[in-house]
């Protein structure tokens, strides 16, 4: 939208700016600079810190520039004696009851209040009355609150409300007694920690990182999150080969997620330096024997020998691996032994979707500014938290229409303009109803909804002039995915975009890297020697019966069920220890960067695979450089053509891979088989009315999240301790039961 340009004069200099922009943004952008604490772009305006006061001609008082919109001919003064006195006065007021315990504060060194005061340099403290003192309290196992440091900018309550839709924290009491608190004294939310991230001072504290190091001692490495497919950019803080904390980035310079992260991305990094990591390669020399620590040379030689002996080899990748690894595994399958089959273990296979893709994937920014968003299935709040946040802001701040099709109510369904609550397991019928109006009545009956609901959704979609975004989750089978991918080409709106709610951080990339893959079960069943990078899902593992295989090699971080069943286990490096790339559900290929050296004897996955390949006589032309692997990717995958690591340097300008668009594909076969399938759905079913608790998936204890002790408490009901001054970890056992007195004393002592 081209906005009218107008003239604004700031400190005597004239600028052309878009009409109606927040004055504070213009002032800062043009390099004049006003301090502010409560202003936060894209959150509701607050104007409470009163730091950004400026003088505007023809206005009686100093004005808070955050709430002023630029108008033509506005004359602004940002620097004068009067303004500096006012701004310093606000600083002085904020410091009055602030404890000034910077030397022991986790924020010391990256505190915005500290920075503003230090920028002035000569602030005299006139306040010598007693300060209002309060003890530091825990709000949850993961969030601590030192309320006396609070300057009540309320960024935390606003992100909780506007980003998360949780309203878990709110201000309580009044006046100088105001505190940021919780309902019932304990946080029962998704524990995303965004309140901690946006806090300008050390009021809300990361319970995992608390008192670990000073911020300036940390090396900050910008990388991509290893959990869901949203691909948030984050900064890994490490010191001496140990990961201490993860934060998003700066308030203004940042990747697709800004300062947003979810509980997993922010807190579940304990696995990286966990004591259970596999330390050396392990070999089981004889079936039925034990896994015995070994050297790399022996393990590679042993594995290569067994694979050579086998009749048919198989390779299984997982979608948490980097593109580099999956690509190398594919090459391993192609180039080491003829007839090697390969598969990717994921929640669902995106192949039918990408084969019929008729519109570009949408970016997270486009979601925020979309006009209509249709979410078919999935559980965005729990599985793709950034996408959920963007949807929520689109609805809340952008007035977008949200059509939610799901069998289970969720937090987002309260915000939906239309929540189509379907019978359990029938969301696919909605895709059919959209693709084939003649089947709409049947589909509506199977979903247990009125036909009018489908018509209403269709009307909303047809009336949409801006971006219309269709998202879908893992409920969609192959036919439904193909039909969904084809939907945009049937719609007259040219702004239709698609967004797969993929399962893992590199689901899209792994799908790109391994065209022609087979289902995991087929590969496992058809091979007598298996190379598995990562672990099989529980269902896949149960079906695979790995113990009966003549030979299985596994690359893993931990001795999971899959690894424990292997004959050779290679210790793999985690995302924090390796270079590479992930491709997210926007189609952005983003860098994963090595923050620390691989722990113990671990090696990056792609390197393990290529070592094994060269032992088998294949030369991939790379052995020690991830960027060389990426070049090989760019040379062999059309969508990645021409890309090099230097192109991916700037996380604020992510690079999109070029997925091929297929327009006008004939999906009538898929529609027909989808119709058959839908017609076999039961006619009547009880709807799921209970809304699952917040965090039911986010807090789940998995191989990775389980290494952060706080997750065990959250998964076990997040019990509220009697003593809020002491970490719940000292008061509860991992299963949520209270520790016996003696134990807790020992632990605390």
């Amino acid at each position, binding site marked *: 939208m081209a906005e009218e340009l107008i003239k604004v004069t700031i400190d005597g200099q004239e600028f052309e700016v878009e009409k109606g922009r927040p004055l504070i943004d213009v002032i800062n952008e043009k390099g004049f600079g006003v301090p502010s604490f409560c202003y936060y772009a894209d959150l509701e305006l607050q*104007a409470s810190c009163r730091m950004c006061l400026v003088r505007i001609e023809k206005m009686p008082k100093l004005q808070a520039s955050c709430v002023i919109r630029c108008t033509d001919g506005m004359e602004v003064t940002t620097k004068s004696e009067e303004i500096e006195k006012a701004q310093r006065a*606000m600083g002085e007021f904020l410091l009055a009851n602030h404890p000034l315990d910077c030397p022991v504060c986790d924020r010391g060194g990256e505190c915005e209040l500290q920075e503003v005061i230090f920028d002035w340099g000569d602030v005299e403290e006139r306040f010598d009355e007693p300060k209002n003192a309060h003890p530091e309290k825990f709000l949850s196992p993961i969030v601590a609150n030192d309320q006396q440091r609070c300057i009540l900018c309320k960024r935390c309550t606003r992100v909780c409300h506007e980003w998360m839709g949780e309203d878990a924290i709110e201000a309580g009491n009044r*006046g100088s007694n105001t505190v940021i608190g919780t309902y019932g004294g304990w946080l029962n939310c998704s524990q995303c920690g965004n309140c901690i991230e946006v806090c300008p001072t050390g009021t809300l504290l990361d319970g995992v990182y608390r008192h670990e190091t000073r911020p300036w001692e940390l090396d900050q490495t910008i990388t991509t999150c290893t959990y869901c497919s949203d691909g948030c950019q984050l900064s890994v803080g490490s010191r001496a080969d140990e990961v201490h904390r993860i934060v998003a980035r700066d308030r203004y310079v940042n990747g697709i997620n800004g300062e947003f992260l979810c509980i997993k991305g922010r807190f579940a990094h304990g696995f990286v330096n966990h004591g259970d990591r596999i330390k050396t390669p392990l070999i089981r020399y004889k079936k039925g024997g034990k896994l015995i620590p070994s050297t790399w040379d022996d393990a590679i030689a042993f594995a290569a020998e067994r694979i050579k002996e086998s009749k048919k080899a198989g390779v299984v990748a997982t979608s948490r691996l980097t593109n580099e690894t999956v690509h190398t595994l594919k090459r391993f399958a192609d180039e080491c032994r003829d007839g090697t089959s390969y598969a990717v273990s994921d929640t669902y296979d995106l192949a039918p979707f990408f084969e019929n893709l008729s519109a570009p994937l949408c970016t997270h920014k486009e979601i925020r500014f979309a006009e209509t968003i249709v979410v078919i299935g999935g559980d965005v709040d729990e599985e793709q938290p950034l996408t959920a946040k963007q949807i929520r802001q689109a609805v809340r701040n952008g007035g977008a229409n949200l059509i939610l099709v799901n069998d289970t109510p969720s937090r987002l369904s309260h915000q939906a303009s239309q929540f189509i609550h379907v019978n359990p397991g029938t969301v696919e019928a909605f895709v059919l109803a959209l693709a084939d109006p003649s089947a709409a009545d049947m589909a509506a009956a199977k979903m247990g909804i009125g036909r009018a609901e489908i018509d209403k959704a269709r009307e909303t979609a047809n009336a949409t002039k801006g971006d219309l975004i269709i998202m879908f989750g893992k409920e969609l089978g192959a036919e439904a995915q193909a039909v969904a991918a084809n939907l945009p080409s049937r719609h007259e709106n040219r702004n239709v975009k698609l967004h797969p709610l993929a399962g893992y951080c590199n689901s899209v990339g792994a799908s790109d890297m391994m065209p022609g893959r087979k289902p995991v079960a087929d590969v496992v069943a058809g091979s007598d020697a298996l190379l598995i990078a990562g672990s099989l899902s529980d269902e896949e593992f149960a079906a695979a019966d790995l113990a009966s295989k003549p030979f299985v090699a596994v690359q893993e971080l931990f001795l999971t069920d899959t690894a424990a069943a292997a004959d050779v286990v290679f210790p793999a490096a985690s995302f924090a220890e390796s270079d590479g790339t992930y491709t997210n559900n926007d189609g952005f290929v983003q860098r994963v960067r090595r923050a620390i050296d691989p722990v113990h004897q671990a090696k990056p996955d792609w390197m393990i695979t290529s070592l094994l390949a060269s032992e088998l006589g294949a030369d991939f032309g790379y052995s020690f450089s991830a960027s060389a692997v990426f070049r090989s990717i760019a040379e062999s995958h059309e969508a990645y053509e021409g890309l090099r690591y230097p192109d991916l340097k700037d996380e604020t300008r992510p690079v999109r891979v070029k997925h091929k668009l297929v327009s006008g594909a004939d999906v009538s076969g898929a529609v027909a088989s989808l119709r058959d399938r839908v017609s076999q759905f039961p006619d009547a079913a009880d709807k799921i009315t209970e809304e699952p608790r917040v965090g039911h998936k986010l807090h789940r204890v998995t191989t990775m999240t389980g290494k952060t002790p706080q997750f065990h408490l959250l998964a076990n009901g997040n019990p509220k301790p009697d003593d809020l001054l002491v970490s719940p970890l000292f008061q509860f056992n991992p299963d949520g039961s209270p520790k016996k007195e003696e134990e807790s004393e020992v632990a605390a002592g």
Partner: protein
Amino acid sequence: MEIKAIGCEPLQLKRMHIENGHTLDVYRQTGGYESLKKAMNMTSDQIIDEVKASALRGRGGAGFPTGMKWSFVPRDSPKPKYIVCNADESEPGTFKDRYLLERDPHALIEGMLIGAFALGVETCYIYYRGEYKYLIEIMDRAIEEARQANLVGKNILGSDFNCEFYTHTGAGAYICGEETALLSSLEGFRGHPRMKPPFPAVEGLYACPTVVNNVETLTSVPQIIEMGGKEWQELGTEKSGGTKLWSVSGHVKKPGVYELPMGYHDMEKFILEDCGGMLRDDKKLKACIPGGSSVYAMRADQIIGKNVTLDYEGLVEAGSMVGSGGFIVIDETVDMVDSTKNLTEFYKHESCGWCTPCREGTDWLVKIFDRIWAGGGRPEDAQLILDLCDNIEGKSFCPLGDAAAWAIQGAVKRFPEDFKKHLLQNGNGAGTSGS
């Protein structure tokens, strides 16, 4: 307790002394609801023009011309429109609305109905301060009576005019007397003020056009319609029309609610004669806070022999403001440090905590006053207090900060001798007089 009009016929106080004045029957017998009938035969513009002609200014404290406020409401807006009566009377020293609500509830209903008719409003809210909960029953009963008489509800008096009334209480916060905070509270949120603009007339309750008026402002409306705007204005002065209620308290013999025509001459006579003179004959007048605690206190020598007229212009000229008409008379026994300490504590207690200067400034000021009162005053404290007030004034989010600053600045600037007494006896604790 005196409740009477001086210098004019009792208009607002017409039914104060009539038995059962709060009932519909008595209200009608004394001319009630005739103005509504008259107004319903007028056009919207005619009604608003009459209110404009009356020079009626908001009686809650800010003194904004009511007719102009009404004319800001976009009448062609497709959104519902609201009239909200601000009965959150909590300015220290102010208690006039209480009597109107208790003894003449129908006057308020009629005033609101006339406004509603003029502005196309179908829903009216009366927001009581939490402490006035006991008065709500009277209003609820009055509304019910009016409903039975087809004065509230659907098709009022057989016309196609519909208007519904609701009463609501706050939870005891001074800030909810500020119109935007009142609206937040009425919507069920924390009573925090909101950004202006947009002003409530454009985006108020539930983001719809809303008029927020004080009780006394609205009870004036039936008289204006009855008498005609011009005639009503002529009771007072050109810019301050009509009559005004003053809540007189403090060291006078006859405290109470007085109705005076605007421009009443003069303030000295009012205190020393009309209100019965000083409470103790041997004690002299020291100060008067004429408009509720938030305005500058006046020294006796700004009143005695100065011909101060009681209206918006006269009091500004004399160095204070009409405010809400909370008229506090103070004699020479009062230590202004003590009374200001009390007021500072009030503002600290009532600061909502939204913005930095008001929240932290009032907290700091209370700590300074506490220290001074404990004998720890320092000579530089007066300057510090004034500087802190200056740092609050004009920088706070809403007028509460300004009000706190004015009350304190006024005392420090105008009663330096009281402060000197405390600030120069530094450290030895001897400065404490009993309070």
